[in-house]
């Protein structure tokens, strides 16, 4: 059975549906298999569709979202990376929504219990989520830097570059944060200045500044706020995309970086924390929306109804997918070794605990 270079090219094209890890493991034999199939049945549309579908399913599995991944032991890392990237996609919207809820809460003196509770849960979930994300970024960046310094950077160059470029862009876009915060720290706008002895006021001030900043980023073309130069509008509108790019770069680093043993043990708890906090945030925001907040005029993203609906769907999907990846990671968690040794001899079985 002879194969032509045309068959090889066709087979290699079909192979591209699969993720790199799968291609590394099965690529050669799969191409050989397809070449033999082409010799037998040159045209088979169903076969191409089958390969494409299974390739995509394997890609989803490789991202920790189905149990078809190539490497089950890497499922927890894949889940951590995927949930991180998903949350990164939505974290700016989440910050904006939290700052709205917090701003509405702090501008009123009468707070019904459900509003108090949902605003409190939102604040706690947002705060802890940011801490977890910051911890993940710190550990991964440190480990990647150490690996690069030791000259084992081959697979880290691409994601490191993407993370650096998107990170610098995000820092540039957020450069006005200190100047926005300064009046609240030193006292202005009729406020006496931030006193750390009043944490409620500190959080309310942070929420106001966060709203001023994130509102530029989540409302395309700065709807609802004073007009800005076109270049600034374009930069602002690219911020959520830059955040997502940063999330993807970190997800790739999470999977490729050499983690110390202690950090490896923390991968699964980090997946659980991320997905749980994202889910709690979503549920608390839904609860806050239902209760209407103290002012009762805020509904989901009033600047643009269609964008609000898109955000709502994404905001619902993110915890759903993050929780799914966490559940799959749990299935492939290494089992704890038994704390006893079995001795099997001619006289029977004895156990040493």
């Amino acid at each position: 059975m002879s194969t032509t270079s045309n068959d090889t090219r066709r087979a290699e094209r079909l192979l591209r549906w699969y993720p790199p890890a799968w291609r590394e493991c099965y690529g050669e034999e799969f191409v050989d298999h397809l070449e033999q199939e082409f010799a037998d049945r040159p045209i088979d549309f169903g076969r191409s569709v089958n390969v494409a579908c299974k390739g995509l399913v394997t890609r989803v599995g490789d991202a920790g979202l189905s149990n078809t991944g190539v490497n089950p032991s890497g499922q927890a890392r894949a889940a951590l990376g995927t949930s991180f990237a998903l949350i990164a996609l939505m974290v700016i919207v989440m910050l904006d929504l939290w700052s709205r809820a917090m701003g509405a809460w702090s501008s009123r003196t009468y707070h019904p219990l459900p509003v108090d509770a949902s605003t409190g849960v939102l604040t706690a979930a947002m705060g802890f989520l940011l801490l977890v994300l910051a911890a993940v970024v710190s550990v991964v960046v440190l480990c990647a830097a150490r690996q690069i310094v030791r000259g084992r950077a081959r697979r880290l160059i691409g994601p490191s570059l993407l993370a650096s470029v998107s990170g610098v862009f995000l820092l540039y876009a957020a450069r006005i944060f200190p100047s926005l915060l300064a009046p609240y720290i030193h006292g202005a706008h009729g406020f006496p200045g931030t006193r750390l002895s009043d944490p409620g006021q500190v959080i309310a001030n942070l929420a106001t500044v966060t709203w001023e900043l994130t509102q530029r980023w989540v409302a395309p073309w700065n709807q609802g706020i004073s007009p800005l130069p076109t270049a600034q509008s374009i930069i602002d509108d690219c911020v959520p995309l830059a955040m997502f790019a940063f999330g993807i770069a970190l997800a790739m680093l999470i999977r490729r970086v050499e983690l110390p043993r202690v950090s490896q043990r923390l991968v699964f708890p980090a997946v659980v924390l991320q997905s749980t906090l994202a889910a709690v945030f979503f549920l608390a925001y839904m609860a806050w929306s239902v209760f209407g907040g103290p002012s009762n005029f805020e509904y989901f993203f009033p600047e643009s109804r269609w964008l609000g609906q898109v955000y709502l769907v994404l905001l619902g999907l993110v915890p759903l997918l993050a929780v799914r990846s966490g559940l799959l990671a749990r299935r492939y968690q290494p089992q704890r070794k038994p704390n006893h040794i079995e001795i099997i001899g001619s006289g029977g079985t004895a156990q040493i605990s």
Partner: protein
Amino acid sequence: MTDPVEGLGRNAGAAVLILSSLAGGDKHGYALVKDVEEFAGVYLPPGTLYQVLARLETRGLITALEADERRRPYRLTAQGAAVLSEYFTAQQRILKTGQARLKRTWTLA
């Protein structure tokens, strides 16, 4: 009753066909397809075949041998043989019960 090929989901049928084929000896991917086509009359498309092979390998039911050029043969493991045997025993029980009930209630010409 627990399903011995539990966890293979909708690919359980393809998994049984592959395990049955490997029960007859080591085979690489294309030889597997041809063998299954011959004894069961079922065509396993390449995407499905390799998805199931990967799952069976992950579960330790088959093992990949040293590649001969680009072709890598697969071998049934002892665990795979036990699972297949258990599966057939369960299927035989269903088959016998079904046949007996059919015989009792329907008289076929």
